[in-house]
């Protein structure tokens, strides 16, 4: 890789107000260029140049390539099957409409024991990060069975429990880069004790409010254990603004779902994400055989 090329890339990155990790191949460079174009469009629409500028200064660490994202089953803006990405975008729009443009803490939980909502939470948070004027923070609150770090192929590192345990740890320490632009993540952490006690603590409340109020364009998503499985989830419901229930396709009956919804008994539930619906073979086949 020549220095001239490096310089060119840097210049491009500067134009797009985003920090791009130096690409090490021609291929990657082009990917990045593609990735940038919709971002421009978004910017023009939203017109939040000032905050985007600020956000663009955030260190995103190593940015994952489309291929890697695809491998991790994480959406990206120029994916070939952009129907899914668009679905997440629509979901994002709906959530923003609900919050009337303000940032919020949304809790995502599954209604089926054993089926966790990690993937969906991750993708919802990613969808928010598509918008250059927004950042998203994903907190893994599923302390018994944390998944997010593994989903992102990240090493288990200090996280939420460590922070709540140890007052000397600062927020910055537990906020990890994800490789996805504008998306940060707080893993469950390494210390494992009774979860309820963590979530009922004042430090948890403080953490939430400080996270929410620090940046007005930061959207916080709590990925929690299935609501039927853990009492934590109900406690966490107190701390969040919205609650999104993930209903996987063909796993629960209407009766059980109704019971679950009734047991939540909270007006914070804004809706259901019906996921894992079967993919139509036509699209899948064309995708498979074109790749």
């Amino acid at each position, binding site marked *: 890789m020549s220095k001239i090329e490096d310089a060119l890339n840097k210049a491009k990155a500067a134009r797009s107000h985003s920090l791009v990790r130096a690409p090490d191949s021609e291929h990657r460079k082009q990917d990045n260029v593609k990735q940038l174009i919709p971002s421009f469009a978004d910017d023009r629409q939203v017109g939040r140049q000032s905050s985007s500028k600020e956000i663009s200064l955030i260190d995103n660490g190593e940015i994952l390539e489309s291929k890697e994202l695809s491998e991790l089953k994480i959406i990206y803006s120029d994916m070939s099957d952009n129907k899914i990405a668009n679905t997440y975008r629509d979901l994002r729009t709906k959530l923003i409409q609900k919050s009337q443009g303000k940032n919020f803490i949304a809790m995502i939980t599954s209604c089926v024991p054993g089926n966790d909502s990690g993937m969906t939470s991750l993708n919802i948070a990613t969808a928010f990060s598509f918008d250059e004027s927004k950042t998203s923070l994903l907190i893994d609150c599923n302390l018994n069975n944390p998944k997010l770090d593994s989903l992102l192929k990240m090493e288990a590192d200090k996280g939420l429990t460590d922070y709540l345990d140890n007052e000397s740890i600062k927020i910055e320490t537990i906020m990890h880069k994800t490789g996805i632009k504008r998306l940060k993540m707080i893993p469950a952490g390494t210390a494992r004790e009774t979860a309820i006690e963590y979530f009922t603590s004042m430090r948890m409340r403080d953490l939430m409010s400080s996270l929410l109020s620090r940046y007005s364009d930061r959207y916080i998503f709590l990925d929690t254990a299935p609501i039927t499985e853990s009492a934590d989830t109900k406690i966490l419901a107190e701390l969040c603004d919205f609650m999104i*229930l993930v209903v996987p396709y063909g796993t629960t009956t209407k009766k059980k779902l109704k019971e679950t919804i009734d047991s939540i008994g909270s007006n914070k539930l804004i809706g*259901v994400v019906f996921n894992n619906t079967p993919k*139509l073979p036509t699209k899948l086949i064309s995708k498979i055989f074109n790749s």
Partner: protein
Amino acid sequence: MQLPFEEVIKVLVGEVFNRRNSIFVMFVFISLSLLFVGTVWPKRFTTFSIVIADTSNILQPLMEGTAETTRLTDNIRNARETIFGEKIMAQLLDEAGWLKANPSDIEQEKIKEELKKQISITGIGKNLIRFQYHDVKAMRAYITTKRMAELFIEEGERSKINESQAAYDFIENQVNQYLQKLTEVEERLRKFRSDNPDARAGLEGEVTNRINRLTTDMQKTRMELHETKIRRDSLREQLTGEASITISQSREGQFRSKIADLQAKLEALRLDYKETYPDIVRIKHQIADLRKTMNDEIKQWEEARQNTRGSGTVYIDETIKQSPLYQQLRTEASSTETRVATLHGRINEMTKMLEKEYERAKRIHDGEAALSKLTRDYQVNQEIYQDLLRRMERARVSRNLDQQNQGLTFKIQEPAKIPLIPNGIRFIHFALAGIVLGIALPIGLIYLILQVDPRIRFSQIISEELQVPVLAEITALSNLSEDRNTKLNLLILATGVVMVFIIYGYVGWLKYTGQL
């Protein structure tokens, strides 16, 4: 909740795609097993023969009312019973070659049962009988069907002849019985007649006539007797005294008339002659004599009368007795007496005869009742006998008709043919069913699961029935390695399907060329 059809199809297609491996396994299993069944499925050859039961032959109108042709009454049932009878079944078993393997009795029974299941005997229209038979071997199907029709005809004709022979025999027997009865009655009648000669038709009338005649005769005789008695009485009276007076008075008259005659003669003579003429003198003497005789007689009679009055007995003058009139009266009286006696005798005789006749009439009445009974018996027997005789003649003709194969005849309208192409479910059907079922059954099963499984597969249920908004419907994401696996999997499945079709083609070809 009525789900939109499009949604259902979408979900169904998705499910089918997700479960493609199990579907493929089922497809391979179903199609190959049906293909296998198709190859081992026994061929089914069907052949049939149509027998016409011909009733409308030329003889029928000719023999109408005289001879009975055997009717086509329930031929089908008859045919079934004939064919399924022990005799013909055994013959069929033998001729179709079932016995080559020396089956035991129980096995034979089983084969027979099987044959019965495969044989169908149906009626077509009024007088066609269709014999149909299925078999795995074409030749055996042919032989069985052919022989079945032939044996049926043979058996039918034989039974028909037997039947008419039996009818004839029966009638003949009846005729003989009645003949015997008739003879018996005749004999009894004859005996009765000889025992009772009076018992004769019309005798009663005769007897009545006779009685009538006798009665009339008797009345007449009685009348005559009465008359004769009166006459006898009168004659008797004449013959008594008073009668004699009358008689003597009449004698005096005779004297006087004689005298008058002589006087007249004398007068005539005096006209011509003198008193002294000898004739006149003689006549004068004659007149004087006569007067004297007359006077004497009167005197005598007077005396006699006076004497009889004194004694009371009838005096009859000797002269009177000597008179022809008296004699005549006496003769008459005696003959009248005889007549009376005769008439009495006759009346007695007649009374006796009448009594006899009455008695006879009574006998005749009694005999007649017995006779009419016997006659009636005789007549009835005779009538029946004659009728039976006529019937016997008809039965004889009917029997002859059947014996010469006239009347109801069975002919083979359509002979059995050797079937060339098997029918029923064949290899091709199994092959097609294998493909179709192999595809349809698993998909149908999935559709059924979708219908039955209560788990939520449609977002509409959440949004509309539970009234919870569905924010998004997200299909699962797949990564590259998964895609690669899917691709590999699809290729394998496609290869598998192609393999199945190749097997189909190969087996089909073997089947077509007859190697299988």
